[in-house]
């Protein structure tokens, strides 16, 4: 190529302009959160701004946040997982069935559920890394695989107290223990959520593995040519995602006191919404753990506040959708055309 490259202007360092507009866009999610908290407090006073209601909000956001964290870890290296929540349903089936059908101690049930999820995630990684199918397509197919396999295991019906196993045997436990139910209630529910956020935050921001994963997400080719083993790190991100997926499934079943058929499937879109809102927080421009939590908090706060203001629950999805759309506008509409 004989192209004359314009001489880069060394004098003009294009430093990041800290303009008011950019500030508003970077912190739009946080500002919206603050404004809505103030507005709801002004309108409904103590009915909104009370310790009990704040706990309500935290409880409502917790499961979305955990699934959001799973999605964050997948999306950091520019991956994507449509099948995360169908897999979580499987984790829930395994968890509750181990507890009720086989009467195993709680901690063993948790570990088995996590282990099974990790094993099932090998299939996801096989399709993505070995068969080289684009993430979106591979996990789209797996979504159906998870649904079918999971329901085959539970025999097409929910796993709950008083039900026989698909083989017709009596369950070992007839009642859910206090410890089982405690996972799905405050304070444990909230503590587990915060722990997940903290672990993901430290992993992504403060370890070299996390930085490598972000480097891959920014530019896979450059990361590879920097000597980063991109396949190994995509695999690592996948395994961590699997653990968070299992935790999400466990929380859902504990909170619902059973593993209903497809109990987790509906969380996918909310979790993705939280990640997308979180991407914009502080101008991070990449999926990040704290942002995801703020995204989930924003949605939960709006839902809670609007419900208190007597807005019918069936309208709320429109509000969620609008928040997501606004976050995406902040992220994309301000971009320059390439």
């Amino acid at each position: 190529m004989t192209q004359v490259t314009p001489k880069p202007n060394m004098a003009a360092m294009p430093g990041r302009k800290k303009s008011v507009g950019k500030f508003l866009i970077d912190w739009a999610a946080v500002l919206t959160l603050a404004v809505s908290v103030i507005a709801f407090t002004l309108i409904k006073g103590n009915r909104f701004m009370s310790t009990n209601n704040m706990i309500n909000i935290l409880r409502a956001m917790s499961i979305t946040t955990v699934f959001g964290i799973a999605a964050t870890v997948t999306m950091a290296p520019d991956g994507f997982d449509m099948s995360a929540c169908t897999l979580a349903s499987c984790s829930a089936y395994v968890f509750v069935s181990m507890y009720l059908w086989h009467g195993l101690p709680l901690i063993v049930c948790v570990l088995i559920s996590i282990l099974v999820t990790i094993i099932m995630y090998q299939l996801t990684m096989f399709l993505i890394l070995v068969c080289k199918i684009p993430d979106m397509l591979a996990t789209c197919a797996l979504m159906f695989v998870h649904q079918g396999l999971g329901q085959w295991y539970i025999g097409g019906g929910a796993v709950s107290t008083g039900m026989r196993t698909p083989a017709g045997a009596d369950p070992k436990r007839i009642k859910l223990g206090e410890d089982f139910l405690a996972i799905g209630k405050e304070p444990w529910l909230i503590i587990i959520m915060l722990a997940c956020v903290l672990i993901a935050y430290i992993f992504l921001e403060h370890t070299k593995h996390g930085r490598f994963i972000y480097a891959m997400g920014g530019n896979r080719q450059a990361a590879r040519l920097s000597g980063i083993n991109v396949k190994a790190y995509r695999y690592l991100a996948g395994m961590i995602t699997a653990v968070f997926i299992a935790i999400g499934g466990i929380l859902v079943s504990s909170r619902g006191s059973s593993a209903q058929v497809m109990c987790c499937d509906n969380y996918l879109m909310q979790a993705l919404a939280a990640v997308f809102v979180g991407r914009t927080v502080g101008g991070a421009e990449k999926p990040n753990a704290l942002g995801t939590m703020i995204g989930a908090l924003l949605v939960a706060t709006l839902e809670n506040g609007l419900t208190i203001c007597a807005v019918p629950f069936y309208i709320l999805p429109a509000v969620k959708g609008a928040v997501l759309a606004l976050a995406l506008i902040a992220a994309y509409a301000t971009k320059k055309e390439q």
Partner: protein
Amino acid sequence: MEKITLGTRNVSIEFPGVKALTDVNFEVSTGEIHALVGANGAGKSTLMKVLAGANPDYTGEVYLNDQVVELRTTLAAKKLGIQIVYQEVDMALIPTLSVAENVMLNDTVMNGRYIMNWRSLYKRAAEVLQRLNIQVDTHKLVQDLSLAQKQMVLIARAIVNECNFLILDEPTAPLSDTETEELFRLVKHLQATENIAIIFISHRINEIIRICERYTVMRNGMVVDTTEITPQTTTKEIVDKMLGRSFEENFPKEIADIGEDLFSVEHLSGADGKVSDVSFHVRKGEIVGIAGLVGAGKSELCKTLFGAYEKTGGTVKMGGRELKIKNPSQALKSRIALVPEERRKEGVLVNETVSFNVTAASLDDYCTASFLNKRKIDQAGEEYVEKLGVKTPSVRQLVKNLSGGNQQKVAVAKWMAADCDLYIFDEPTKGVDVGAKQDIFHLICEIARRGNGVIYASCENSELLSITDRMYVLFDGQIMAELETAKTSEDEIMHYAVGNRAQYA
């Protein structure tokens, strides 16, 4: 057929800080194949973009026969029958559409109808291809074509509508010998059957002498000469004009002690056949150049050595021990570094900070049990920013906000911090201004002085002459010659780089 002439009168173009074209007078007439030659950055592509209407900010005038025309948009150029086929054919083709749809693309966009007339589209495309004597199935998808066939589809697209001037920008650079022959046949066929002028840009002087009638030489944004090609025209004559007498910009070579053999390659092949049977060696403290024109396989060789492209044969040894490198991560473990050519795409992580980029390849040194020590990372950032003279307001600045030369320095810094034994530089000065170029040269010399081996691939022969100790000239993925820098000349490099096997006299 009526002869039509297209020409420029005192055309100049200025980019910020660079005068890309200065008072260019250039003329072609239908019926001729006109070569445009010049070293990299001479302004060939810039001039052709003016004729194609892609450089609207020119001063001076363009004339068609005796009439001044305004070429401020690509549409205006197309309406005057000027078509250009750029080197990157994939940019202009839509891989998932059929050959016929691609051939007729401009027509489909411009004909103003709302409903596709498939029968007429396939019929007209087939007619055009037949006119060019090209055998390609019109229903085939373009993604299934070879590079040469894709180029022909583009040429066919260019002549669907009235075309009197066809610009081919380095069409043969990525082609194999047989594909090149096929292209020449097509070009000659066009010349014989259409009222058309073909402007042919190429670095391969031999080809030009073979198929062109006239040539124009450009240097530093100016036209140096326009002459007929006669049987007496020699490669040397053209190369001399391309280079001119003066090429100052010399860099005083910093002498390093050259030690024992460090790295050797025997019969290396790979990168989908773009590297074949390459053997060479690098000694400690030595800077070994890889010369060759654009498309000669220099980047492919560098990336094959680094494990980024697949190696299909041959052995690679470091310090006498054979290396089995399957991916860049293993190359790094074998203490090999690569500073790639496309730095924004491959060399730096543009969305990360300067300090993270600097430490990216050696992050283990800045971690305590996998946890990042951000203070140490920033210290390393500061250290290299100062050492390399990177112009940045802070080490926390994102690399995408730096200028090209500074990004390149960051890419070099990344590998200096990693402390390797062999450093591969692929076109390290591409798009870098003179000041930064000197800084990068100093860095490379310092790397060699530390007793490391350096491979320096570049198509800038003057750079190779000033910085290397020895060099290998590559052509079509093969080594044509090994030259001692002290005993060679730019002419000799060019002689081998254009594919001459005969001994340089």
